[in-house]
């Protein structure tokens, strides 16, 4: 177990680097020295380890240590940002003064005494990764490989890997807020190559969570991971491509949350809206989807890859209802956008590392369950595709056009799943696609995979989920 609430008498994890209240006060004063109206100090210490198997040998490992401070000085919505990997006081003061230069007046704000804020506990773990030696990791990736080979004789090669990270962050604000959080993460990956005659295909499956070593003691979970990696690979051997064009698309429950992420999620990040460059900028309070569509971005799901006890600006993340019964209710806010809209931050201010400034970002984005039986959704589709797994997506925020890449799926013909299909890009327009959601299943599932969201050159871990959903028409890139 790791503490998520600081004892005011202790300086926490970063004390070992000389980060004590007096130092924090000095650095904040430097960041505010030229008249900035606010600032934040973001300390990060991250230790990552990965071990990988290929050619039936556990023959590769890596470790990375990232340590540093990012200083942001703000004047309204203007920001000065600097970082340093050197946590000596002179280096931190230099970074703070560099960031401070966004302002050009006399200091008006002085930091008050720091006080730790109470944080929830959304990723309690039993075995911390720093207590896990290489000798514990190696047998895991070997067992996954052996199981994969045993499942199908067409499997030609298997690669497995286990990655984990422990990240400590400390966010300090001049209003006295101080939040330290321990953020574990782990990800397991099984990649298979299968061969059948002249056809060779490769595919994979992965699991991710804010969890410790105990995550891998769930035999059912591990079996599911390996089976899915194998099944998804051999599936490709017999799959073809659909005919190109517009058609109904039924999205299987789970990772199809990528539709929400791309078609809706990014467009509801408040920075794009306060600048007026999102297609959703003038739609707050308006009907944007059928009544049975409720979309949420949630930082509170225990153990989820997108879960957070505190965001990277020192706010406690919440469950944010973005679209409620078809009506647009909220954007995802960082502090700059929250001030612009005169609302409370939603705890969505996130950054990739101390080298980056925070932005409004998604955490775990999903659609609440709807009224339709998933089997009925397929049965009611005369002709279309059923998309079951996905690799990536993208969106144009202003135009609203989005895509996601379907790795595996089926043709739907006369209400039945028929031919297996693969490797097609699906494109649509966000608001139009939302309006065209005509069936939502009862079977919400949050995907267990390791999704990473990219924005403005920064990647952050996210989760996504969805029940089975039908969109009346999207453009499918087939033959």
């Amino acid at each position: 177990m790791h503490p998520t609430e600081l004892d005011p008498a202790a300086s926490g994890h970063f004390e070992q680097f000389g980060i004590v209240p007096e130092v924090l006060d000095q650095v904040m004063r430097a960041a505010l020295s030229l008249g900035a109206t606010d600032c934040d100090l973001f300390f990060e210490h991250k230790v990552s380890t990965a071990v990988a198997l290929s050619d039936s040998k556990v023959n590769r490992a890596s470790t990375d240590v990232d340590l540093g401070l990012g200083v942001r000085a703000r004047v309204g919505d203007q920001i000065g940002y600097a970082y340093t990997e050197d946590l000596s006081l002179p280096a931190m003061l230099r970074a703070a003064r560099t960031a401070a230069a966004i302002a050009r007046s006399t200091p008006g704000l002085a930091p008050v005494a720091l006080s730790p804020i109470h944080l929830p506990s959304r990723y309690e773990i039993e075995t911390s990764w720093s207590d896990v030696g290489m000798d514990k990791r190696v047998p895991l990736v070997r067992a996954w490989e052996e199981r994969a080979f045993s499942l199908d004789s067409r499997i030609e090669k298997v690669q497995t890997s286990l990655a984990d990270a422990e990240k400590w962050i400390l966010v300090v604000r001049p209003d006295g807020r101080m939040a330290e959080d321990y953020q574990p993460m782990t990800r397991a990956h099984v990649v298979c190559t299968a061969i059948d005659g002249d056809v060779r295909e490769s595919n994979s499956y992965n699991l991710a969570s804010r969890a410790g070593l105990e995550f891998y003691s769930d035999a059912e979970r591990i079996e599911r991971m390996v089976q899915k990696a194998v099944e998804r690979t051999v599936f490709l051997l017999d799959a073809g491509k659909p005919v190109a064009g517009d058609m109904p698309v039924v999205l299987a429950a789970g990772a199809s949350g990528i539709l929400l992420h791309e078609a809706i999620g990014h467009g509801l990040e408040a920075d794009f809206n306060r600048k007026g460059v999102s297609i959703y900028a003038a739609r707050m309070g308006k009907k944007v989807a059928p009544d049975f569509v409720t979309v949420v971005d949630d930082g509170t799901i225990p153990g989820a890859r997108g879960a957070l006890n505190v965001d990277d600006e020192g706010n406690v993340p919440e469950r944010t209802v973005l679209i409620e019964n078809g009506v647009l209710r909220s954007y995802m806010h960082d502090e700059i956008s929250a001030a612009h809209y005169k609302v409370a931050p939603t705890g969505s201010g996130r950054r990739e590392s101390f080298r980056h400034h925070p932005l409004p970002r998604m955490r775990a984005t999903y659609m609440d369950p709807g009224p339709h039986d998933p089997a009925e959704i397929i049965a009611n589709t005369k002709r279309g595709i059923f998309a079951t797994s996905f690799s990536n997506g993208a969106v144009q925020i202003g135009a609203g056009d989005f895509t996601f890449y379907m790795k595996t799926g089926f043709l739907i013909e006369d209400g039945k799943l028929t031919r297996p299909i693969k490797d097609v890009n699906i494109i649509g327009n966000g608001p139009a696609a939302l309006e065209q959601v005509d069936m939502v299943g009862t079977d919400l599932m949050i995907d267990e995979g390791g999704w990473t969201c990219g924005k403005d050159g920064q990647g952050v871990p996210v989760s996504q989920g969805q029940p089975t959903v039908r969109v009346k028409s999207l453009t499918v890139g087939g033959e």
Partner: protein
Amino acid sequence: MSLLDSAGAAVELAKGMGAEQVKAWISTGVEVELQQRQGKLERVHESSTLGLSVSLMVDGRYSSHGTSDLRPAALKAFLQRAVDGTRYLEQDLDRTMLSFEEMGSLDPASLDNDDAESINKRGPEERQLAIKELEDAILSGAGEDLVSATSYLWEVRSQSAAVFSNGFQATQARTHYGQGGMVTLKEPSGKLPESYSFFNASHFEDVPSVAEVSSDLWTKADEVRNTSQGSSGKYTMILDRRVASRILGAMISPMSGGNLHTGRSMYLDKLGQTLGSKAFTLIDDPTIPRGMGSKPFDGDGRKAKIRPLFTEGRLDTYLLDLYHARKLKMEPTTGGTSNVIMQPGQRSWKEIAKEHGRAIRVTSFLGGNSNPASGAFSLGIRGQLIENGEVVQNLSEMNVSGNLLELMASFEEAANDPWLFASYRVPTLAFTGVQFSGS
């Protein structure tokens, strides 16, 4: 302590802990980025950075590591953990490094990609004036449909030193200067299409003027106004020079040792075969002065050299680093590309398109992916419908799909407009009979 000395000290430290082979890289850099919108600075980002990477062989076992915590005691503990952890792995002697005699480097000065003098040419005030000028130039071209215009300016200098335990030592430094802009436009439909233009160069003097950036940005903005979905069908694809790297990169990726070794390559057993059309010739040239991908040596420490990738459609080489070459029992080449070059043709893309009746000019990609094992690809696009060489409709919400091997065979001609502001120095490319999906 110099970078070379620091890297050398890390090598000695790791050797002293029991590593028999060590490669160490120290890198440092300074970067400045400015972003301006609506007449004021939106963001100023200025930092310096320092980091160490090492790869180790311990008892024939391999691992790699990186850290930004370079305090002596922390570094020592970090390396000790790295060495100790490596002992739990299995032996893989294919990771053994080359001998000193097999390594080498071009003279970094011959690449002329370090314009160090210009990095301090402008102070904060001058940079703020420069981005104001850029914003003014962009706004001078704006129409009533402008919603937002953001201007960007950046300067980056990075230096690195490599020291290997076999005595190999090398340094390199490079700079990037650039500027650009992004505009969001308003359409009656409610859509807010975006357009952008960015230029990146290794020398300050090679960055186009603010007037050129503005002109280019507004030319590109014309391509995204009032888009609609075109009809599904087969068209000649005119692949714009700035985005051709997306397709060419997907064609090159399966040449890598990693993909070949794991069976994820459409080129397995096809080395030396003619796969593309006669017009399809690509080379990799790391030696180009001021080239954005130029480099004096590769990741294995071998001297960089020019290498044909495809000649008249024939697959000339795999991209094999030492490790994967040994796994595949082949001769190593190099682990990746540097500057990918296709020689320009004689005609403009419009002249080429005129011969093809109906064509789609792809100006940007949106998402999508490709399958390196089968060559299947499917990508979202924006572009223009071209009839007899003239633009008749701006397009969006369309996909282009097919197989990369078939696409390579359908390559017809390169235009005369190579793009020189990226590591893919290629002109606009024409492919025939390409499947697009839309309405």
